[in-house]
């Protein structure tokens, strides 16, 4: 009986999906002359940003990025909530396997380089490939390396949640500031500078640095919570 219901639901969903995709085909010529030319032109002429993808993600579609960051925040919070009761007491952590001294000194050597690379990626998000999300993920990888190599390495949950809330609040505040200056949410209100300069693009580098810090703190906290789960 269950299988019949599931099949029925799938058939209905599939039917409507096919119908809506059939409709999409009719707008073919419209899509070709859509917003892409507008974005490509405005990116260079108005915002003075070298990376078009960044200008779309942070400026034109900045509200979507806010939603994306919120989804990640909710996922990390839910995981922390589920595993909260099963956490070890402070300091005690079960290790995957004891690491040798080669691994220990190797990861100590690599850790600053990885953090530097992550910071570089999100600070230069408007000039070169990459951005807040990528840089944050790279930084979290560095912390993961240290957490795996050293069983007494720990990060402060208070600092992580402070960085996270700080970055989130300032993201929204910068967006609202654009509204207060008479524009839309996340509208640029700062001087844009010269194309290909580090200090260019108005609020885009600031927003991307905030996103990078937020993602790094969230992913690091997520790994930390999972690693600290009690065995049985």
């Amino acid at each position, binding site marked *: 009986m269950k299988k019949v219901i599931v099949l029925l639901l799938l058939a209905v969903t599939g039917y409507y999906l096919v119908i809506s995709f059939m409709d999409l085909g009719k707008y073919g010529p419209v899509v070709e002359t859509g917003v892409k030319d507008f974005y490509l032109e405005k990116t260079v002429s108005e915002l003075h940003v070298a990376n078009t*993808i960044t200008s779309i993600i942070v400026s034109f579609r900045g509200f979507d990025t806010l939603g994306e960051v919120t989804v990640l925040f909710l996922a990390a919070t839910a995981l922390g909530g589920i595993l909260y009761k099963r956490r070890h007491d402070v300091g005690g952590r079960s290790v*995957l396997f004891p690491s040798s001294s080669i691994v220990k000194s190797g990861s100590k050597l690599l850790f600053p380089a990885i953090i530097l690379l992550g910071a570089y*990626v999100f600070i230069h998000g408007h000039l070169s*490939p*990459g*951005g807040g*999300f*990528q840089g944050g*993920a*790279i930084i*979290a*990888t560095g912390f*993961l390396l240290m957490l*795996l190599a050293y069983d007494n390495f720990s990060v402060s949950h208070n600092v992580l949640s402070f960085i996270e809330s700080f970055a989130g609040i300032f993201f929204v505040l910068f967006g609202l500031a654009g509204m207060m200056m008479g524009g839309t949410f996340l509208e640029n209100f700062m001087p844009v500078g010269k194309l290909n300069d580090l200090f260019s693009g108005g609020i885009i580098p600031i927003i991307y640095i905030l996103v990078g810090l937020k993602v790094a703190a969230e*992913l690091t906290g997520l*790994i930390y919570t*999972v*690693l600290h*789960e009690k*065995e*049985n």
Partner: protein
Amino acid sequence: MAFVILMFFLIALMIGAAIYAIVQKDLLYAVIATGVISLILSALFFLLQAPDVALTEAAIGVALTTIIFIITIRNTVRNEDEFKDKDDIKSAVK
């Protein structure tokens, strides 16, 4: 031409790793194989001129997801056949 050959080679490698991940009964090896899929996918994204996506895939797919799966395996069971019944799995996970 060389580009097309390289693409086909990488895609074939990816499909091979995916099949290995399904067939392999030892879950640790299967997880490593999914990590290899992500690594090749990131190279493919780079070749297709999407370096932004390639960076994300390399950091999230190869490092973070794989390690979370490995921690999960450490806390549950390593072999697929180790527990036949649902109750056994429940008692192991708890």
